[in-house]
Structure formats: structure tokens, C-alpha cells
């Protein structure tokens, strides 16, 4: 019973707080970048189409 239980021994080192904070910050930056890109494409679509969006057979 003195041998360590293989199933409960952590296999990978636990990331410290600094690493977690850095990862969270990078994830947020990527999320903001993606949302910004979606907004940009939306704006480009709206401005490129302009009034032509109504110029079609209904």
C-alpha cells in the first residue's frame, strides 16, 4: 500500500498562475480579433452593396 497510485498521480505539470493569465489574455485577444474581423467583413459588405441591395427583382 506504500506504492503511489498510478491513476491519481498527475501526468503533466500544473500550469502556474502566470501561464494561466497569459493564456487567458491570448485567448481573449484572439476572440476580439475574430469578432473585429467579422464586423469588418459585415461593414464592407454593407458599404460595397450600398443601395444596390434593393436593385433586384422582388
Amino acid at each position: 500500500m506504500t506504492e503511489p497510485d498510478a491513476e491519481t498521480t498527475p501526468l503533466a505539470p500544473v500550469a502556474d498562475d502566470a501561464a494561466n493569465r497569459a493564456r487567458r489574455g491570448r485567448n481573449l485577444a484572439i476572440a476580439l480579433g475574430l469578432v473585429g474581423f467579422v464586423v469588418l467583413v459585415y461593414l464592407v459588405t454593407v458599404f460595397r452593396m450600398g443601395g444596390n441591395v434593393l436593385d433586384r427583382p422582388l
Partner: protein
Amino acid sequence: MTPPAAVPTATPARWQDFVQLLKPRVMSLVVFTAATGLICAGAPIHPVMGAIAILCIAVGAGASASLNMWYDADIDARMRRTRGRPVPAGRVQSADALALGIVLSLFSVMLLGLALNWLAAGLLAFTIFFYAVVYTIWLKRWTAQNIVIGGLAGALPPVIGWAAATGQAPLDAWILCAIIFMWTPPHFWALSLYTSEDYAAAGVPMLPVTAGAAVTRRQIWIYSLFLIPVCLAPVATGLGGAAYLAVAALGGAVFLLLAWRVRKGRAGDAADPRVTDGLYDVKAAARDARNLFAYSILYLTLLFATLLGEHLLGGAAPGLPGGLT
């Protein structure tokens, strides 16, 4: 092409490290000159589309900076001015800098093409290629003319801005390009006169390293003599008005005075006469070069700010002699 070896990260990369890869200070100059080109074009463009064009050009510049930092990590690690950058400092893996540069290059060029026009997008793609491949990978480690030829990459943003607004790249746009192109050698060589030890240690063949300080001082003077007439060219085509003429002429006279002092001084004769790692805190021997370096930034800023102001306020019109409407 031999990519640099990966440097293991010592600390976890923060998002600010990736922002630093884009060289935000250079981006701000690109935004300024590209906006000047876009506004001087005088074409009606929706402000939102204009802002998207400038954003694409800025991100493209940032992408090329990231590619530069990926390839130059070995050089950067040996220079005092650049050893704190994210890749040589071990905060960002070089492969991540490469990936960021490629992704942002593709996104910025494609979005500029879809949003505005493909001439502007093609010029942006060429600029990124020229800076990352022609300058960084080829010229920088090969010839003392690296910053002369490579300066084209930094000179193109006003042309891209102009093309984004009009779909064309006329003579006036190329005059703006020529101003930055001719300004680059005296600007960088003034800096390299008192950072040459860094460049020598890194094996970069900057002019003071390969030809000596005296030749560099003479070249600064010669390029300055050519720069001032180029700066006055917008007046001849009507791109610049009376205010621009005054700034270009008076500011140009000061530029020539400072360049002459460098020509007659001994800047660069002493090895790396800096007090700290900063670019402005130098010993007496290098003050002439430091003054020209600092003033060159002010002069270029004033030239473009005056053009911008004239066109926003209606003081000059492109293509009309004398700026008269």
C-alpha cells in the same frame, strides 16, 4: 533561405508580446503616411471604407514586421537596441512570429482587395514581400545599400493609400513615395553612425561598418542635397500649397544645416558613443548625428502633416499648378 533556430520560451507569451511583434511605432508612421496619401488623392471615399483601408495597410505593415522579427531573431539577440524583442528574449517562439506574419499578411491583402480595389491590395502584397523577403532575407545581410533599396518598402504606404481611394497611382502619389525613399538613407545612416558597434557585432553590413564613418557622413550629406528638391516637388505639381512650400523650404534648410554639421563633424569616429541603450542619450562626439536623426523624424512628420492639413482644409488641390483651384 535558412530559417532561424527555434528559441525555447522562458516565460509564457502574453498578448502584448504579439502586439510588440507588429512594431506599433512603425505602424503608427505607416498609418500617418498612408492616410496622407488617401486624403491627398481627393477622391470621395466613405470614412468607414477609408478607415478599413488604413487598417489593412497598418496590419500589413505589422505582418511584415513580424516576419522581420522571425527571420532576424539571431541578429536582434546580438544588438543592444533589439535584444529585448519578444523572439530573442524568448517570450515568443520564432515559429509563432512566422505564423502571425503569414496570417496577417493574407488577411490584410485579401480584405483590402475585397473592400477597396486590387491595385491597392497588390501594392500592399508587394510591400510586404519587399520588406520581408527582399530587404530582411536578402539585402540586410548582404550589402551596405540595404536601407537605400529596402527603404522602398517604407516609402510605399502613401501610394497604397492613394490607390485605395482612387484605384490609381498617379505621379503625385509617387512623389510622396520618393520623399520617404530619399529621406530614409540620411535618417538611418545618422542613427547607424552611433550604433555601428551593434551592427558590427551582429554582422550587419551597415555603411559605417563596411565603408567607415567618413564615407557615411559624406553619403548623408549627398542624400540630403537630393532630398530637399524632392521635398519641394509637390509644390511644382500642385499637390502642396503655400504652407507646404514654407515648411518644406525652411525645414529643408534646417535639415541641410544639421547634415552639414554631421558632414564636418566626427560622429561615428568613436566606437558606439552611447551613454545608455536608448537612441537619444549619446556622448558629445555623436550629438550631430543624434540631432540629425531626431530632426529627420520631425521634418518628415511636418511635411506630411502640412500636406494633410492643406488637403483637409482645402488649401491645395492635386494636379493643379500652384495649388490653385
